[in-house]
C-alpha cells in the first residue's frame, strides 16, 4: 500500500489530499472538500497532464525565439523528452501565431504551436527589448 500526498489546485482552498494506492489501483481519496478535488487527485496519481510552454529558435526573424506551447495537456512524464525535441527545432520567419510547428508531438495528440507572431524583417536589435 502506498500513500500519495497532493495539494489540490482546483480552488484557492488548497486542500491536502491523500490518495491510498495498491499498485496502480486507487483505494481511497481523502482530505478533499469537493468532488473536483477527488477528480483532480485521481488524474494526478494516474496520468498527470500538463501544458508545456517554451521557445523555439527562429531563423531570420525580428526576434531570436518564438514562444510555443502544446495546444493540449501532455503526460507529465514526457516533459523531458519534449524539451529535448524542442532544443533541436528551428523555424524560419515569418511565424504566425497559432502556426503548428510540430503536428501530434511525441504521439500525444497535441500539436506544438507558436503563441506569438515573429516578423521576418530583422529590426535594429538595439531598439527592442
Amino acid at each position, binding site marked *: 500500500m502506498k500513500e500519495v500526498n*497532493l*495539494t489540490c*489546485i482546483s*480552488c*484557492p*482552498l*488548497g486542500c491536502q489530499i491523500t490518495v491510498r494506492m495498491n499498485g496502480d489501483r486507487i483505494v481511497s481519496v481523502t482530505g478533499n472538500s469537493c468532488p473536483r478535488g477527488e477528480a483532480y487527485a485521481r488524474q494526478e496519481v494516474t496520468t498527470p497532464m*500538463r*501544458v*508545456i*510552454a*517554451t*521557445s523555439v*529558435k527562429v531563423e531570420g526573424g525580428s*526576434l*531570436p*525565439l518564438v*514562444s510555443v*506551447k502544446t495546444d493540449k495537456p501532455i503526460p*507529465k512524464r514526457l*516533459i523531458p523528452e519534449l*524539451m529535448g525535441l524542442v532544443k533541436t527545432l528551428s523555424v524560419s520567419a515569418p511565424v504566425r*501565431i497559432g502556426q503548428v510547428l510540430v503536428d501530434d508531438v511525441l504521439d500525444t495528440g497535441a500539436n506544438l504551436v507558436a*503563441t*506569438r*507572431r515573429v516578423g521576418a524583417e530583422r*529590426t535594429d536589435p538595439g*531598439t*527592442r*527589448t
Partner: protein
Amino acid sequence: MKSYRTDVLVIGGGAAGLAAASAAAEAGRETILIEREDSPGGVLEQCIHPGFGVHRYREELTGPEFAARLVEELDASGAEVLTGRSVLAIDPKTRAVETVGPEGVRTIRPKAVVFATGARERPFGALRIPGPRPVGIFTAGLAQKLVNLHNLLPGRRALILGSGDIGLIMARRLHLEGVEVVGVLELKPFPGGLMRNVVQCLDDYEIPLHLSHTVIAVHGTKRLTGVTAARVDETGRPITGTAREFAVDTLILSVGLIPEAELIGRFVGLDPINRGPCVDSRWRTRAPWLFAAGNSVAVFDLVDTVAAAGESAGRFAARFAENDIPEVRKIPISRGENVLHLVPTEIDPGVPTLIHLRVPRPMQRAQVRIGEGIVSRRLIGVRPAEMVEVEVPVEAAEELAKLADVKVEVVEE
C-alpha cells in the same frame, strides 16, 4: 513643436492600457494609446507560460496570446497607437502630456488620461542584503526577459529568493532550460504565489521550497559564487545558528512589485500601502480628468482583473471626455483588520463598486465586512497571493454614506 489633441490618452500598452484604449474608442471617443516599446503587449510578451485569460476569454492562454487578443480588440476599436514613444511629464494644470520618440518631441493635449504604466520589480539594493556586489543577481522579470525574448541564459546554478508568481514561474522556466535550480526561499511562512504555481512549477520538478527563510549574505567578487541563507522568526529576523550555504552563480529575486506611478504621484498622491495613486469606484484619481488602472494602481493577482480594470477606467475616461462626470461626494474607505492592498480607496455612490483587497496571511474561513457589515461576504480559503473581490451595490453605497467612517475588514472565523 508638434502637438496633438485627443479625447482620451492612454499611457501604457500592457493589459490595462490596451483594454482601456479599446473601451474608450468603442465608446466613440477619439483615443490615442502611447507605448514606450516598439510594439504593445507590455510584460505579457515575456510571460510565455499559460494561465492567462480564464476569466476574460474562458480559455487558458499564454501571455503573448492574451496580448494578441487585446491588440486585435484594440485594432477593431479604432484607437490610434503610438509605439516607441515615452511620456516625460504630465502638467496637472493644462493636462499637457509631454512625450518623446524617434520622430521627436510631441505634446498631446487630451481631455482625459488613463494612466496604465504597470509596475516595476523591487531591486536587490532595496533589500539591504550585506556582501560584495557580484554579477549574477537578477530580478525575476529581467531574467525572464533575457531568457524568453533575448535567447540569453543568466546562469548555470540558481537560487530563487521570493516565492511570488514570477519567481515560481522562473524556477520552472530555468529548470526546463537546463539551469540547476537549487531551491526557492520565502521569508513568510506561506508561499507568495498561487498554489497552482507552487505545485506545477516547484513540486513537479522537485524544486525545494524553503518557507521562513531568507538570504542574509551574498558572496563573490566578480561573479556570484554563493549565497548564505537562514531561517527567520515570526518577525522576519534571521535566527542565529540556522545559516546554510548555497553554492550558486545566480540569484533570482521575486521580492515584490511596486506600481510605477511616480510621474503622477507628485500631484495626485500615492496610497502608502498600494504605492499607487488613490482611485475611486470609476478608477478616477484625485485629479478629475486622470484615471488609473492595473498594476500602476496596486499590484493585482490576475491579468484578467487588470484588463477588466482597464476596460472600466477607459469607459469612464471616455464619459468624462464627452461630458464631465459630475463631482459627487465620495466616501473614503479605510483599512480595518487584515487588509493590505485595497482598491479603490474611495467609493463613488453613483455607480456599483468592485472592491479588491489582499489579506496579510492565509485564512481558512473568514468574512469581509464593509461599514460594520452593511456589505459582507464569506470567504473560504483566502490567501495573500489571491485578491478578494467584493461588490458594493449602489443602494449599499448610499447606506455607507451615512457612516462617519467606512472600514473594510476581514474577520477570521
